[in-house]
């Protein structure tokens, strides 16, 4: 193995040497500054593609941003009198989201400024009803061209969409304490023997939508668990058969945005998936039919004969961060009453519910606190919520 490593190192360095003579002729993208004769009379606008995919492209100048019906937005300008390097920055006033596009050309068009799905360049998502400022900067010019206060009428919904062969299921955006019955986690479970436990949505800190889920408390009884939130009937994901069956456990990702504060030690978020392995259900249709009945739940008996899978995320960073965990990293729950009695085989099609829990871990007994937001599951790869 070491010999292979040495061979790899030597061959790559030799290859590098050979490549010197045929390397790139410049570093980075084109950089062309405006000359003194540049015509500063620039028109600049934001547009949406209004036609459906496959049809002849139709566009309109947009007074509002709407990525709900149209995946594609883009910017346009008049033809400049010379080729220049430019950067367009879209900044959300409320969300803190920023998206950047740059290029070198004598005109800004669909081809060089396409904005897909309203994605941002940083961790924050653009929000519905917020105002966005578009700024066009041209290298060598003091002038910034601004389209200010364009409102976001609708944002893209990622739920049940497929992009680049990756399927998305939004579990909960944590925008309400009472999400719809068929999606979202509405049941809150505090540890009643702990102190000051709160599990509630809040508008104070969020990365997507109008709010996030705030989890806090002191693990007074030293059992490590402080509180959590879960699907109420523990069957909700089967009602819409949201997760396909047969997905490789390395290709199924549980994604959640978590806000960290490194000064609050021992904060850990635990994600748990529930599988329904009741052998009376022979097909997926049977599982769906059972889940569709509003009075049905994943009973204690079913849980004790099914698998529960757990993953713990120690929150040791500062600020918002998306954590993406493949199903293969989940470990089996060890409480026979809550999902340790299954076949210990991860079966994506049998995942019927999710819970998110706040733990005092690695050390129990601590005062812990964090925010979580926009939980999703992706099938076929990690999510691509952000501009590259």
């Amino acid at each position, binding site marked *: 193995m070491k010999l292979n490593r040495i061979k790899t190192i030597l061959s790559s*360095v030799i290859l590098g040497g050979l490549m010197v003579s045929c*390397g790139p002729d*410049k570093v980075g993208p084109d*950089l062309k500054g405006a000359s003194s004769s540049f015509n500063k009379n620039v028109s600049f606008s934001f547009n949406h593609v209004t036609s459906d995919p496959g049809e002849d492209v139709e566009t309109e100048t947009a007074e509002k941003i709407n990525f709900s019906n149209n995946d594609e937005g883009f910017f346009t300008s008049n033809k400049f009198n010379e080729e220049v390097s430019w950067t367009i920055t879209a900044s959300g006033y409320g969300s803190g989201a920023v998206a950047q596009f740059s290029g070198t050309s004598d005109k800004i068009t669909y081809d060089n400024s396409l904005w897909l799905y309203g994605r941002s360049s940083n961790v924050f998502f653009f929000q519905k009803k917020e105002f966005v400022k578009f700024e066009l900067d041209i290298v060598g010019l003091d002038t910034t061209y601004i389209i200010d206060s364009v409102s976001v009428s609708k944002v893209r919904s990622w739920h049940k969409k497929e992009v680049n062969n990756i399927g998305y299921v939004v579990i909960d955006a944590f925008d309400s304490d009472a999400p719809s019955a068929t999606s979202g986690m509405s049941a809150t479970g505090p540890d009643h023997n702990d102190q000051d436990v709160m599990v509630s949505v809040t508008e104070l800190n969020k990365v997507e939508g109008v709010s996030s889920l705030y989890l806090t408390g002191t693990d007074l009884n030293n059992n490590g668990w402080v509180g959590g939130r879960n699907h109420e009937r523990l069957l909700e994901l089967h009602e819409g058969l949201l997760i396909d069956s047969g997905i490789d456990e390395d290709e199924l990702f549980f994604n959640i945005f978590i806000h960290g504060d490194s000064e609050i030690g021992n904060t850990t978020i635990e994600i748990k998936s529930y599988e329904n392995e009741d052998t009376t259900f022979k097909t997926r249709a049977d599982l769906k039919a059972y889940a569709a009945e509003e009075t049905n739940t994943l009973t204690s008996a079913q849980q004790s004969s099914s698998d529960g899978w757990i993953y713990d995320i120690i929150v040791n960073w500062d600020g918002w961060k998306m954590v993406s965990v493949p199903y293969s990293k989940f470990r089996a729950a060890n409480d026979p009453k809550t999902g340790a009695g299954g076949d210990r085989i991860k079966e994506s099609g049998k995942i019927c519910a999710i819970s998110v829990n706040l733990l005092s871990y690695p050390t129990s007994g601590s005062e812990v606190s964090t925010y979580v937001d926009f939980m999703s599951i992706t099938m076929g790869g990690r999510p691509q919520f952000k501009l590259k």
Partner: protein
Amino acid sequence: MNYKKSIIYSALSLGLTISGVAQSPQYSLNGLGRSIISNNNLSGASVKDATATQKANISGYNLFDLQTNLDVDSVFNAVAIFRTRSPFGTSFGSKTDFEFRQFSMGGNVNGLRYQLGDIRVELTPYTVFNADLAGTGFESDLFSERREILEYENFNDGNTWLLQGVSGQYAWNLGEESGLGLYAFTTRTASTNELSTPDRLLSGGRLEYALDKYITLGLNEVSLYDIAIASAEFDYNNNVVTGDFTYNRETEGALVGFKAEFGGSSYSYTDNVNDSTESYSDMTMDVDFDYTLKNQGLKLGFDFRRVGATFASPTAQSRRYVSSANPMLFSEVKGSVRGQQYFDQFTSEEVYNNSISTSLMAFNQYYNNLNPYGDATPNRMVFGLDAATDTSITAFEAGLALNYGMEIIGEGGSDLRSFMVAKGGGLIHIGNLLETNRLIDANAGVRFENTARSGSADVALSSLLIDFGLSGEIAKKVDLLAGVKYFQASGNEFIANRDGFNLVDGFTGYDIDVNEFIYSVGARIRFSEKQTFSLNYNMASFTDNNIDNSQLNIGQLFFNFTGKF
């Protein structure tokens, strides 16, 4: 360990001889104690009406580093530095921190010198090297003593990096002043979170062959790589291999030295989140020729280096100074973060870095545009001429260096930047000239840099740094000290923004016209060679000429007692 010196010499002279010596267990202590108090105030037109901005504070700390040295026998020894640190203003031990600052074990087994724990690593300027900051080289003692505090706190020792791992060294004496030496190390620079971040290891070494007492050949290799885990968000791998040749010869009237180093790097980074991989390779070469006139005490040098635009060597390109870090002293001015001034470069502990960065760290082009990442700065071809006095002259020291460089590949187009740096200065030991035992020194230095590029994105940036200092021993072991620094920068430049693959993905242009005048006066008492007390007053006055009423003054009364034993 510092491997700037020959590993053959080091291993043969220390390792093999010690291996045969039996010794009884020995235990010794040494360390450092320091007490610092600073009384700071903020003034100037920019904060004249800023009633909500803090304009005065007092801060400082006491610390004591106790180093224990245990030599059980020649096979095993251990060193641990235990630190006690208490911020100024606390009492009865409250908020006092206790920590092991450094810990290592080592020894010699049949000639194999080994070390475990915190180890110092250095190879060559293109493989493993912690480059110095740019300056005139002739600054006042007042400023260099402040800088030494920062470097000590940041674990800087020469051009080494302090890392955690294991190293070993062995040499074979081939007779007739010929020898073969081998040095290898492995360290961990980042630990896994068992999910998205893999362990990152740094491994490398040097094979050195001394043909005779004049000629030495070396082969250096260093790899920084991730230990792959299935759920990792990225997979990083970077390798650097160089070979070097050294020739030193002494004639009747001169010393002749020739050094050359050639090599290449290969970089690979896989972004598992976005399912993309980037890899690239590049080369470097460096030739140095030195000629010392023994009778005149003058050393002349010529050097040439060429470093490819995508040459990647994180352990040689990581910077010890973080230009983007926010200083804690008056961290907020009128509701905004106070940007760094030149004064912070040698007075703020927060702006220093002691870890290896896989991406090229940001830098301020107006402080140093020619070689912000040391000699290994990518995309540079540099010619240099220098002259300096050697150590045989005791009355004065002087040096002059001229460097002309250019990019190899243009950034954003075919036009290339050119760089010109001239620096020089001198230190006169007036006490030696007057043949007194008193310390009377005067120093002056200057560094001028100019960057230019023509074409559609033209660049014209110049900067000037001037140093002046005086030291006078007015009574036995009591010195009066004075120092001045003047920094000025003006023009325009473009910052290259880099993506996660370390590749340039955009540019941000800016104009600059700033100057900063720093003066310091004070006194120092040298109780002994290792114990000093100093008290000085510093004033740093910064002005951004592109902004009205921008003057910002930081005044600081600085008390420092440092004792080593």
